């Protein structure tokens, strides 16, 4: 076994995993605060990636990503206002069905707005060269890391960790956890629950945008297209492995699934072609069978 290759695979896995982690962290944040499983999370990534693409037509890519984030935040808040708030107090299933409808709507909307073809970041037509964030690819002692991997590691991973810490220690984090437990009790204590919930949706859209932009190739490897929706499905195995209601769990699970994918690509793919895509979902099956509360899911507090 080649040590350099193993290290390289591990780092690449972690890099991809970091992207999964931020997206899943945002997804879980929404689930925590509203009990809504957002089936439109893949479309959030898609919208985020397309917003980044549109911005990249006018600005350097790094700046374009930064500019896309506030837009994504507004988009998330609008979704909350338009789709989730009116259904507040209804059966949770009703809201979940609404997110499925939202997913279909957003799918169609992106088709109309941006067309069916895959874009290249910053290129209005195929004659132009795609833009990329400054290349950080390096080769150290036989360990080669692509620019995309480095960017993911230095951007997505700290962001995911920041999200975990903010939820644990910041004022808004405490409020969000309070609201997630009981909106009524929070309101009775004068906590602005609607605003906290809107924040959660906004942040979720922001993390999906970062994940979407980089998965779509902000650091090389194409641009946004509808294949992102398939990539977005990875959020569900990650969230389930993490415990579904735990943001730290989602981050750890994202990294784990990234690693597993990378090593499966390296060792298993030649034996069982296609196994890499299936593995996350096999993990879901095992988790649901043997550890339904995942890695760090909340254990119910029950006093008798």
């Amino acid at each position, binding site marked *: 076994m080649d040590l350099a290759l193993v290290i390289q695979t591990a780092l690449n896995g972690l890099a991809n995993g970091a992207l999964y982690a931020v997206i899943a962290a945002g997804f879980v944040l929404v689930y925590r605060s509203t009990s809504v499983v957002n089936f439109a999370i893949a479309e959030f990534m898609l919208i985020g990636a397309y917003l980044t693409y549109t911005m990249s037509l006018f600005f350097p890519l790094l700046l374009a990503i930064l500019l896309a984030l506030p837009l994504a935040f507004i988009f998330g808040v609008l979704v909350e206002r338009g789709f989730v708030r009116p259904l507040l*107090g209804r059966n949770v299933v009703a809201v979940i069905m609404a997110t499925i409808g939202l997913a279909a709507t957003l799918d169609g909307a992106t088709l109309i707005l941006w067309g069916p073809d895959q874009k290249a970041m910053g290129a209005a037509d195929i004659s132009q060269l795609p833009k990329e964030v400054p290349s950080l690819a390096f080769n150290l002692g036989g360990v080669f890391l692509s620019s995309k991997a480095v960017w993911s590691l230095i951007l997505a991973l700290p962001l995911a960790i920041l999200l975990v810490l903010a939820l644990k220690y910041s*004022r808004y984090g405490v409020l969000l956890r309070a609201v997630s437990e009981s909106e009524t009790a929070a309101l*009775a204590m004068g906590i602005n629950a609607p605003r906290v919930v809107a924040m959660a949706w906004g942040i979720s859209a922001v993390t999906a945008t970062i994940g979407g932009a980089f998965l779509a190739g902000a650091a090389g490897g194409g641009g946004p297209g509808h294949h992102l929706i398939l990539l977005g499905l990875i959020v569900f195995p990650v969230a389930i492995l993490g415990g579904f209601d735990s943001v730290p769990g989602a981050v750890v699970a994202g990294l784990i699934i990234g690693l597993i994918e990378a090593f499966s690509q390296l060792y298993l793919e030649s034996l069982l072609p296609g196994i890499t895509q299936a593995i996350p979902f096999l993990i879901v099956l095992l988790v649901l069978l043997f550890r339904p509360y995942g890695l760090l899911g909340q254990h119910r507090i029950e006093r008798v």
Partner: protein
Amino acid sequence: MAEINVENLKVVYRGVILALQGVSMRAGAGEAVALLGPNGAGKSTLVRAISGLLPQYDGRVLDGRITLGGEDITHLPALKVAGLGLTAILEGRPIFRYLTVIENLRAAGHKLTPQRQKELTDEIFTRFPRLYERRFEQGGYLSGGEQQMLLLGMALLTEPRILVVDEPSLGLSPKLTEEVMRVLDDLRRDKGLTLVLVEQNARAAFSIVERVYVMEQGRVVFEGTAQEAQADADVMEFYLGGAVAGGFSEAKRYRRRKRWV
């Protein structure tokens, strides 16, 4: 001028279930008032109506008016009502069970400056040393009495002018109930709060309030000072329970049932 004034309030749930059928009550500034009555009398509904939380329970004010210090709050959302200085401790001890004691207090005091929050938190820990000992534990693991103390502490951190407490004695031992009542009374006097106390345990409530309202089936059926209530044979029999001459041995096996409505 009355701090809280409820006039002829009618409340429905889900558009059909009439829970309050014209209730009037008031509490003057700095006064302590108890709402007594059996299960389903509409006490908690009145609490929800006053604190603006009816929409959370799919309820609606049909008719009548609630004013707070002269301001009409009948249809005001809960957040605005809280902003006016009214804090409600709902029934069932609604602390945040997955938050630690400290985090519960932080959540309740989120509007204060960090310095003020620290002052008040210190004060709460001096009042309830037990909470300080357990400050890093999740609220869900506290005992019933500790949870009630935590709730009072949280209410204190919202710096209310008016405190509405729904059934603080529920599920507590008589000794703890007494303790909770004492603390509530202390808090009220120290902070000059207006207190609306909802209780089924009338005996406990009498010890700390000036006036009582007895509710039954969505109506107020008795109104008077705590002394008047205790002098009233019917109120005593039905809401204090067991005030039968000669003790339990002579009490009828099936208690006489009386309704005012």
